[in-house]
């Protein structure tokens, strides 16, 4: 569960970055002078969300327990 969620977050984050960058904000192959507007408003925010999601995967990886009843026992 934890591993799946982490991988999912990384992949989704990278996908969001790629899509928002190449698809929405800076359309591939289009001249930069003709395109003064991103295709979708807040495309830049989507890009940042992608970056944040990718790095948040590390938080999930460390903080989420493997199973709901999984309580780590102290090792002394």
């Amino acid at each position, binding site marked *: 569960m934890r591993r799946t969620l982490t991988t999912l977050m990384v992949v989704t984050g990278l996908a969001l970055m790629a899509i928002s960058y190449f698809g929405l904000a800076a359309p591939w192959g289009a001249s930069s002078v003709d*395109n003064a*507007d991103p295709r979708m*408003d*807040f495309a*830049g925010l989507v890009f940042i969300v992608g970056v*944040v999601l990718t*790095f948040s995967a*590390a938080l999930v990886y460390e903080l989420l327990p493997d199973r709901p009843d999984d309580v780590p026992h102290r090792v002394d």
Partner: protein
Amino acid sequence: MATKTLTERPVPRGEPSLPQGIGRFNSGWKVFFAVGILIAGFGGYAYFREYTEGMGATGMRDVGTMGGATWGLYITMVVYLIGVSFAGITLAALIRLFRLEKLAPVARMAEVLTVVSLILGGLAIIVDLGQPIRGIINLFRYARPQSPFFGTFTLVIAGYLFASLVYTYLGGRRDAAVLSKVPSRLQGFHRRWAAGYQDTERERRRHWTASFWLALAIIPLLIIAHSTLGFVFGLQVGRPGWYGTLQAPAFVALAGVSGIGHLLILAAIARRTLGVRDRLRIEIFAWLGRFLLVTLLVYLYFMMVELLTLLYNTPEAEKALSDALLTGEYAWIYWGSVAALVMPVAILAYQALNSRWNIGWLVASGVLVNLAAVGKRYLIVVPSQTHGTLLPYDVGSYTPSWIEWAVVAGILALGALLIGLFMKSFPLLPLDESEREVMADA
């Protein structure tokens, strides 16, 4: 079992105490805080004047017919601060990736340096905008990757800052867990940071893996981020002195220099005020000194290449600019910065070759290279505007107004306050065995 530092009163026996001066504010610290608040407050007032009167309150003016510079001290500080942020997290990541255990005591202060300097860099951008509130909203809404600014805004400020915060947070959980066992005013904060960390074998392994991948991901992120900062300048055909392929790599090199310089200063301050001479040993300073020497030599190489290229064949458009830099009105900053880079090379090389390191000289080197870094950033930003017009406008001039100096001082004071506050709420050096034992017994 009271911990005592050189400058603090001892805590009465029987009361649990937090290590490294956390939660204890001596008179020296209070003076530091008061002065910091005063300067930051004055900076805030100066910015209020700028916000209400318009940016004409600064010394900046339009390029061309107005004979001014439209980017000045603020953008100089933006580039400088983002540069400082580079070395911090890079060092922390390298310590993790190459398991440089000897340098582990400075890993956290390096991370803190990065986070604080990025926050300051973001503030410095905002004070430079003519419409700051609109700027924040419109950047999120309309940000265009075709503009080099996009990388600065998204990757540097948002992405890199967030990644560094995550890295620092995860790396601090173990110490937070130890501290959260001690009743104090900060216990709630420590508990929340620890988020249930129990220091089990499994958790340690997880952190080991997570920090590895984070460190691995952060390094390309920040190389891209710093290169886009270089591109902000290097891609402008219309500005002699800016357009060039060396801008991006030179930015990264000088960033490393100023960051390690700052780290040396911070480590020396920590060593003195926290009384941790046995942990922040001279070997650590020696390593930082060697890193600084190498990055300095790399940057000086870039500078030499740039200078020789310019002297050998100055394109028509750059004649006025190169004259102003080398012999004209900017010469004192140019040669002053060169001196402030070359002297540390001599100081560091002498120490490295004799294997005799002195913290005082290292701090002096750190200060010098940072003065040089500010000077060099200024020389990148301003002369290409006053002496770099392609059409034959008269040469311009730029002098920062008191408002710009006050705002910059306020921003830097804020940074010092943030670091000072951090040091009073969380251990700057990762806790070692003896400190953890003291906590466990308390």
